[in-house]
């Protein structure tokens, strides 16, 4: 999709048109069988996962702009998300409705009654659009504030300051009476639908891809690689960093607005630095600087969280992880060109891990067999123990996945490469990259 030399308004209008056609097409599908109706193909359970994945994608892709592309280390994305969630929710719950009613009344009286009724039918999307914009702008303002220290602080220190801002925002919300303080903000209208999340996730990916492939993106990567050289090459590093922070924070605000209007509830505890860490994990796991990598890993981690909810899911995930680890380990050992003995050794740890996992999973059966041979053994039922601590088990496996992936693939799943359908069709995973340099 190379930009043509047509005049700007024309090109822009064309793109907006295409975008709406796509969204409309999807919503049309939604009207029939895919999402709604008596037997929707995608039932509410899966829709829930998809919406959560979409929100996670917006968060991860936008954070990638700061952490991956501009090379600044932000650990406070959930703070921006909180600002977006609370401000937009406050708007649509307390201000928007009243304001809108007054506006309609004014229009009906002074302009035309038809326009008033027409607007009334679109009340919900109009209100939600404004709420999202308000949330995004507020988050962007917060991003500007947090971005300012990035002009002075580097690396770990910047990370701590962003983390600090995150905690301060959460702490302020916990003490803000109008939004329910620490017990959470309830009664937010349910505006978020799958179509909203889908459209905004696409818009987020598209716009950040555009930025990354522009001169501004090049300047961001230059700042990441060497700030002093960037400054000496005429790059306004201040502007570049502030733009990255503000734009990224705005999308975090959008994600927050979507989440608040989806679960109709916002709790300060959902926006602590642990949530920020989750986003950073998605970005690093997908490969710093790879937009598609962030999106894929954010979606993957969301699905994983669901899968890990029950013990069989945890079992299959663990087995898959062991397989993947064995493969990566094998590839690594092979590339070091050691003898066949050490290649075999690459499978030793995964093998024992697999046995241990299976022993836990089939503990009742194994115990039954063993007790037939040694009647007095009185073995513990590991499976029952796992069932009883499912909540913790989920995080244990999640953390093991983090550690194993980081140890065996430190560059993340995709590294800095981009992944595209076109590249897949060519039979290669290595995309040529949006600016043809991500070999």
């Amino acid at each position, binding site marked *: *999709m*190379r*930009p*043509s*030399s*047509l*005049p*700007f308004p024309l*090109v*822009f209008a064309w*793109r907006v048109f295409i975008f709406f056609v796509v969204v409309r097409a999807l919503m049309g599908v939604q009207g029939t069988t895919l999402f709604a109706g008596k037997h929707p193909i995608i039932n509410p359970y899966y829709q829930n996962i998809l919406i959560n994945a979409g929100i996670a994608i917006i968060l991860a892709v936008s954070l990638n702009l700061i952490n991956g592309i501009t090379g600044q280390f932000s650990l406070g994305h959930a703070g921006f998300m909180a600002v977006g969630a609370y401000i937009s929710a406050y708007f649509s719950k307390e201000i928007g409705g009243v304001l809108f009613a007054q506006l309609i009344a004014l229009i009906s009286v002074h302009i035309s009654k038809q326009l008033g009724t027409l607007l009334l039918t679109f009340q919900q999307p109009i209100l939600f659009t404004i709420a999202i914009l308000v949330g995004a702008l507020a988050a962007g303002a917060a991003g500007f504030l947090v971005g300012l220290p990035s002009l002075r602080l580097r690396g770990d220190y910047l990370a701590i300051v962003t983390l600090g801002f995150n905690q301060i925002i959460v702490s302020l919300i916990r003490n803000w009476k109008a939004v329910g303080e620490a017990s959470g903000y309830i009664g937010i209208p349910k505006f978020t639908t799958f179509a909203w999340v889908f459209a905004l996730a696409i818009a987020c990916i598209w*716009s950040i891809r*555009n*930025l990354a492939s*522009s*001169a*501004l*993106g*090049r*300047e961001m*990567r*230059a700042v*990441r*690689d*060497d700030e*002093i*050289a*960037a*400054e*000496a*090459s*005429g*790059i*306004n*590093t201040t502007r570049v960093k502030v*733009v990255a922070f503000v734009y990224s924070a705005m999308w975090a605000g959008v994600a927050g607005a979507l989440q608040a209007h989806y679960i109709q509830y916002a709790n300060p505890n959902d926006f602590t630095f642990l949530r920020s860490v989750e986003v950073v994990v998605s970005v690093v796991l997908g490969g710093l600087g790879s937009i598609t990598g962030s999106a894929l890993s954010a979606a993957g981690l969301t699905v994983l969280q669901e899968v890990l909810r029950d013990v069989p899911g945890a079992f299959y995930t663990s087995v898959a992880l062991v397989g993947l680890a064995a493969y990566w380990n094998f590839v690594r050992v092979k590339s070091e060109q050691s003898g066949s003995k050490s290649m075999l050794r690459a499978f030793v740890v995964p093998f024992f891990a697999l046995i241990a996992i299976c022993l836990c999973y089939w503990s009742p059966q194994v115990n039954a067999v063993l007790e037939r041979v040694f009647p007095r053994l009185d073995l513990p039922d590991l499976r029952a123990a796992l069932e009883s601590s499912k909540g913790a088990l989920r995080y244990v496996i999640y953390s093991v996945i983090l550690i194993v992936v980081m140890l065996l693939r430190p560059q993340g799943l995709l590294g*800095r490469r981009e992944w595209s359908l076109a590249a897949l069709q060519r039979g290669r995973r290595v995309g040529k990259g949006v*600016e*043809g*340099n991500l*070999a």
Partner: protein
Amino acid sequence: MDFNGALLAVTSVLELKDASITFGGLRAVSPLSFAIPQGQLAAIIGPNGAGKTTVFNLLTGVYAPTSGEIWLDGQRVASAGKTIRPNALVKRGIARTFQNIRLFGDLTVADNVRAAFASHQSYGFWHALLQTGKMASVESAIEDETQRLLQVFGLTNRAENLARNLPYGDQRRLEIARACATNPKVLLLDEPTSGMNPSETADVTRTIRLVREQLGIAVLLIEHHMSLVMEICERVIVLDGGVKIADDVPSAVQNNPQVIAAYLGSDEPELNAVIGT
């Protein structure tokens, strides 16, 4: 005693007027004046710690002078305690390289050059976000210029390599190419041949000549390789302890007793051994 004094007022692109800098009571550069005319190739030499790199940092806005002024292309860019930011200075026409090569390691060679167009060939945030026609036309202009520069510096076949994977000599050439992409009037090179073997040094020497002859940019360089200085420079400024002790054509500087004293006490034959004449 200024070189070419009569012509300075009209044609100098870069001028220091009694600029000095003090760090916490330590005077790194005493009031120093010199002017670089358009297209001149000059060198600053001096023993280690003479303040050469500090002068570069003054000229590029890293430090503000404690006193005095700096003029660039007829405009005052720095005065006592005040300077403009390095990136704004680049826009006014000054570019530099670093003693330890500083490239954008994870960008390709071509992108290293493209990134340096930021100061004079650019488009705003919204154009980037919406990939407008303006972006396309500016990008294609940048692309043409980039290809031309890569051609001039002989890096065309390396264009898609990551900068950090280049051999040392090519890295230095790329750094100079990137500096030239900012469209400078004067280029500052900080020890362009440091850590190089003779063939790499010869290569850099060719590159510097190229910059001057094909692009018409004035060059001011800090250098320890005296043979290079004597071979290509038209003028040599000698600093010692932050004070200018000589400023003349190479052959005159070579025989200046003060310079010889600064380097070696006053033992002339040894100096000749060092500077390879």
